[in-house]
């Protein structure tokens, strides 16, 4: 991985890889700041881009991701919509047909559901249906995943749903550097991208090298290791890096892979990693059954069947509705559960 950024926990450690960003180029930004900066630059660079959604304009978004953008770009480029997610996404389709590049927001993951019909049947299919004459360069920002003790429907993980939908691409950044570069990349693509922001990471600062992003596609090795590969995305990447540090104390050298693109999935980087480590655990917050972990596990198994030492383990949320704050920590994969998963894989014996 020539463009791998090697990170551990919240602090970034720079490897000496070719083309890696220099220490000087890095700024300490929160993910909220990084996303805001990315939107600012995209709006400045392309007059066709529009930012809109509930409370995105005057308020700057409930998470302040669009803070200051309306003041800077005016009410035509950055605007509040009425409170209707199907309306927001349906309108985005029409704006795209008129030649704009919409960057709509749904306020929280759970409120993408009212727009699923427009997302699946229209955004995902218009390019196909129109035989390429009506592309859908829409980047839908979805504050996603749990971990903030929020009300019901404010902690959902919809990646398995989105990744199954033909015509969509899906990406999730795990830290401010990724957030900045992946959003800039996504928002300038000619195809629809679902951009899943790990809201529990919005306020954590980390280094961002604005001038060297590395490759914007594929998965990324965040920490090299020899004994086992941990695969994660969004907020779970940071947790897996913590786990890797703990495992290292016990002499277990864990490789952490940030999947980044949840569709298309970079099966090659997965296979390269697991062919080396011969063991893998995939971690996500969404419920287990029919979660994206199954796809990841199956891709690994397909790619590494002859070298794999144990079945790929999944450490995930349970098949239950996302619980209230008091039970959140019981639901989201925690360090112990991930360590247990690692242990099960390491201890696996055939027969």
């Amino acid at each position, binding site marked *: 991985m020539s463009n791998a950024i090697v990170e551990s926990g919240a602090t970034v450690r720079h490897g000496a890889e070719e083309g890696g960003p220099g220490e000087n180029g890095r700024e300490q930004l929160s993910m909220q700041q990084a996303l805001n900066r990315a939107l600012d630059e995209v709006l400045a660079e392309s007059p066709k881009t529009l930012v809109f959604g509930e409370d995105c304009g005057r308020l700057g978004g409930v998470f302040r991701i669009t803070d200051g953008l309306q003041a800077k770009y005016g009410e035509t480029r950055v605007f509040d919509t*009425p*409170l209707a997610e199907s*309306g927001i996404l349906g309108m985005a389709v029409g704006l795209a047909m008129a030649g704009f590049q919409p960057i709509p927001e749904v306020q929280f993951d759970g409120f993408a559901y*009212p727009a699923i019909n427009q997302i699946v049947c229209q955004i995902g299919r218009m390019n196909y249906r129109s035989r390429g004459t009506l592309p859908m360069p829409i980047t839908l920002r979805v504050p996603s995943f749990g971990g903030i003790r929020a*009300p019901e429907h404010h902690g959902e993980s919809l990646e398995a749903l989105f990744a199954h939908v033909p015509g969509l691409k899906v990406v999730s950044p795990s830290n401010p550097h990724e957030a900045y570069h992946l959003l800039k990349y996504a928002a300038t693509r000619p195809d629809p991208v679902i951009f899943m922001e790990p809201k529990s990471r919005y306020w954590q600062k980390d280094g961002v090298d604005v001038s060297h992003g590395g490759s914007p596609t594929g998965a990324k090795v965040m920490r090299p290791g020899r004994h086992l590969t941990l695969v994660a995305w969004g907020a779970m990447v940071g947790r897996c890096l913590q786990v890797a540090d703990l495992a290292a104390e016990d002499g277990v050298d864990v490789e952490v892979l940030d999947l980044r693109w949840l569709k298309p999935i970079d099966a090659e980087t997965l296979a390269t990693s697991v062919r080396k480590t011969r063991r893998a655990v995939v971690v996500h917050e969404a419920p*287990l059954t029919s979660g994206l972990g199954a796809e990841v596990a199956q891709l690994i198994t397909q790619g590494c069947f002859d070298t794999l030492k144990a079945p790929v383990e999944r450490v995930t949320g*349970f098949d*239950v509705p996302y619980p*209230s704050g008091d039970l959140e920590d*019981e639901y989201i994969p925690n360090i112990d559960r991930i360590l247990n998963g690692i242990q099960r894989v390491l201890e696996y014996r055939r027969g």
Partner: protein
Amino acid sequence: MDTLPPPDSGSAAVPLTSRQLRELYSLMVAVRHLDSSAVAWQRQGIIPGYAPELGQEAAQVGSGYAVDLARDFVFPTYREMGVARAMGVDMVAYMATHKATWHGGLYDPIESRLAPIQAVVAGSVLHAVGWAHGQTLAGRDGVAMSYFGDGASSQGDVHEAMNFAAVMKAPVVFFVQNNGWAISVPADRQVAGGSVAARAGGYGIPAIRIDGNDVVAVFEATRRALAHCRAGNGPVLVEAMTYRRGPHSTSDDPGRYRSLAEERDGAGADPLERFRQRLLADGTADEAFFAAAMADAKAEEEEIRAGIQALGPRPGEEMFSLVFQETTPVLQAQAAIWREESEHV
């Protein structure tokens, strides 16, 4: 605006007694005090968040007070604390949702005639229609009361609900609290045409638009609406014009989208103070009564706070056991793994 035919039966027109007026006042004071206390609890770390209803006491208490607890069923949003209190819901169990103990609250919806707290904007408006149609099918005379806001009126589900209800003549009161704001978006950039009540006519649904800060007007309009539905005339829409005087929630900062002057002008006279002046003026209540009501409100708040503070987390086991009526082998297996692993936590 009032397209609701006048009440035909007498009971929907009888004036409130002095006792009832005083009771309404006491409820409003209790709600005001509990509401502002809940904001304080959040600051003190007793609860992680709260959605205050400051300024909507008349709209909530007046309408909730009109509900017939023996027959009707109420579908709230996340901001109907005053309705719940007026209906006599256990307030510790109600507030549990804001303590992040259990989504929807810990009260029994069937017992209390209040559906679980609903966090999806407009999520339960259709439920009210279904429940109401169920009354027709079962030959009962209960009415469903669906609460929603000016922002919620933009959701497609509200339109589907109004159309379904009107086609089926379902006994539903669509009770809209137009509090001027949906988080940062003012109603004039949300509700095209300027009035949710004006929408009703397009479905052949009668509507009343009322001063939602006049608790007696709210009560009387709701009572008329309920009677109209109960008599088998189909749905009614009530739009109570009020104002969200506080932030959207404890994590909101209204200073980012409205000035204090706008806030003052938009809010108008305080509904509680207005009612107090009225009761004083017509001699229904005196200062001693007001002082006693406030003392009761304080005692009540203290009791509720104690209850909330004493409330422990629900056992993690409930994550699994409450998903289905009939659990599944997969879920049982996951619960077993959770039990095993949670000991390491």
